[in-house]
């Protein structure tokens, strides 16, 4: 038994080591000045300094990419959360064929690879003659985020006492009041995890943004990295930026999960 446990632990940590090697690599080399990754020229915080003071070659492009990424993620996930929550409630009360159709459609953006979502939306915008830019990217992100909100809110609806909405009506609440005062608070945990998931998926997206951003020079972090890498040298300040993002995500996720497991232990 003991040997098995040691073996199992060793396996887990080995896989984790391999999994984190690239991330650790970025992290370590964020503390050196060398232009190209993998070239250690001694410990330095210069890249961090450059990042925060904006003193690098294409600093405005990188900073606006970060800004665009965050703004698009925020707008898209707010819209996706609202749209997805209302849709989930509707789907929950649908029966039979209509419900099947809705879940089928909802599954499509999740099953479709990014490139298909991107290309198909690109063709739609071209067909409709819509000029592509901020709006089209946000709409595209809403398209692939909303299904995950629906999926996260749905289990909360199933857990909900089916009479709770009726109980509110019974006590004199109008349907709108019942939604605001009873349904939304009860669904909030699902909405929050749907929101977080949407936000991170939007942050991480490359292919869909790539096809729907048009030609106005709109860059998010992903497309910035892509063009940067194809040009040859990766902007070195990306290393500290990625390290910081990684640390923030690590802390947020750990806090959420530890709080969740504490709650479920209660």
């Amino acid at each position, binding site marked *: 038994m003991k040997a098995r446990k040691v073996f199992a632990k060793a396996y887990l940590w080995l896989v984790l080591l391999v999994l984190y090697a690239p991330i650790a690599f970025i992290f370590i080399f964020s503390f050196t000045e060398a232009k190209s990754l993998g070239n250690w020229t001694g410990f330095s915080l210069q890249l961090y300094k450059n990042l925060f003071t904006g003193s690098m070659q294409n600093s405005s492009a990188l900073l606006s990419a970060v800004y665009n990424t965050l703004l698009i993620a925020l707008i898209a996930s707010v819209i996706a959360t609202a749209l997805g929550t209302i849709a989930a409630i509707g789907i929950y009360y649908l029966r039979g064929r209509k419900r099947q159709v809705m879940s089928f459609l909802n599954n499509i953006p999740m099953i479709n690879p990014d490139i298909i979502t991107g290309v198909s939306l690109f063709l739609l915008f071209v067909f409709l003659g819509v000029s592509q830019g901020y709006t089209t990217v946000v709409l595209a992100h809403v398209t692939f985020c909303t299904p995950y909100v629906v999926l996260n809110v749905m289990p909360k609806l199933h857990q909900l006492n089916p009479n709770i909405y*009726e109980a509110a009506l019974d*006590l*004199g609440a109008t349907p709108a009041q019942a939604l605001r005062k009873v349904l939304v*608070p009860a669904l909030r945990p699902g909405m929050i995890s749907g929101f977080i998931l949407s936000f991170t998926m939007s942050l991480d997206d490359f292919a869909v943004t790539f096809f729907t951003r048009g030609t106005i020079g709109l860059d998010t972090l992903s497309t910035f990295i892509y063009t940067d890498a194809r040009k040859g040298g990766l902007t070195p300040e990306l290393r500290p930026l990625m390290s910081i993002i990684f640390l923030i995500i690590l802390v947020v996720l750990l806090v959420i999960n530890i709080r969740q497991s504490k709650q479920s232990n209660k």
Partner: protein
Amino acid sequence: MAKNYIIDIQHLSKSFGDTRVLQDISFYVRKGEFVTLLGPSGCGKTTLLRMIAGFENPDEGTILLDGKDILELPPYRRPLNTVFQKYALFPHLDVYDNVAFGLKLQKVPEEEIDKRVEKVLKLVSMSDYEDRNVDSLSGGQQQRVAIARALINQPRVLLLDEPLAALDLKMRKDMQIELKEMHRKLGITFIYVTHDQEEALTLSDTIVVMNEGRIQQIGTPIDIYNEPVNAFVADFIGESNILGGRMIRDRRVSFIGHEFDCVDEGFGEDVPVDVVVRPEDIYFTTEPAKCQFKAKVNSCVFKGVHYEMWVDTDSGFELMIQDYDPYPVGSEVMLYIDPDDIQVMHKERLRNSFEGVVLGDGRVEFLDAEFEADTTGFAEGDEVEVSVEFDKVDLLDHEEEAEVSGNVAFILYKGNHYHLTVKTDSGQNIWVDTNDIWDKGDLVGIKILAKDIKLSKKAVADE
């Protein structure tokens, strides 16, 4: 005339898809009355309650509250409040905010809300729990909060949907007493839904017994217990021996192979009937002069207050008897039944009868299937009345070997055989007498031999 009733329900019907859940329901509730809708699960009682509350709309019929039609009113405009089966307390609000929910919506001043919450929590003995999270409360406590939340709005009628079903037995008994006490103190009209016959008997002024979407009987608990109108009610309420019999003439009935005096009249002479005798109404005697029939004790089990015994009568029937004194298994006993304790009921039906169509070459269609039958004298396409005796229907384990399959829906033990109601896959009922033991819900094949299918011309007079 409807003005005397706080709730007056007339000819309600409702279908979900193809299934009729309620059929022509009419009854009324007097002000201050405690009325219970009683029936097995799926009988439509909860749907009926939800219609009164406004969560479902009937296909036909009206619901009057204080003489006014309320069908057009949405639930939040009806002066009725509901206590839901699984409490349905709002998980994100504490006890105080749950109870105050209705008053806050009405924009009642805060001091008054405080006062009324305090008062109603006291009524349900939950005074010190105002700040508690509802998830931290026990089932019984949640139930009390749910009742308080409904009562604080001073509803014209309080609707309770199996409010005690989720509680354990001991707690249920305590809450029954408290509910009864609350009802007495407040004078509010209660409409209470339950499948627990004992609960219904304990609490109600009036019981409405329902089955398969229809009202079976309406009456006081005592009426319903002592004078069930049919075998379903007799079987559902309390323990009973339900036996096939024959009314010989007024006040004389024969069953289990013996003749008895009874108090029922007006059935006619030599008419088949069903007879109900409660197990506590069969008495042991040592005087041969009093003895009406003899039996041998087959089993004897102590049930707490009384003993429950099964006896085999000299005429080959099995009866259940409850008595405070045990009789040893195997002993010969002498028994009698008082005329008062024999309840005679009309038989609901004497044989199965279906509408059918003759298909030609000795085949007939009914129950949505084809059967072989003697069709001499009928032409193809004739609409006929098909009748089959109860004991001529065979039930098979393997439903694929039979023309029709169905599920056993209801079982009645009639002393020497079982009388089953089988619901076919097409939703029709067929009644079967059998000696085999089946369980409720069993999937069975239904087989009828050609010689046992009797055809007759369809009655001309349509309903």
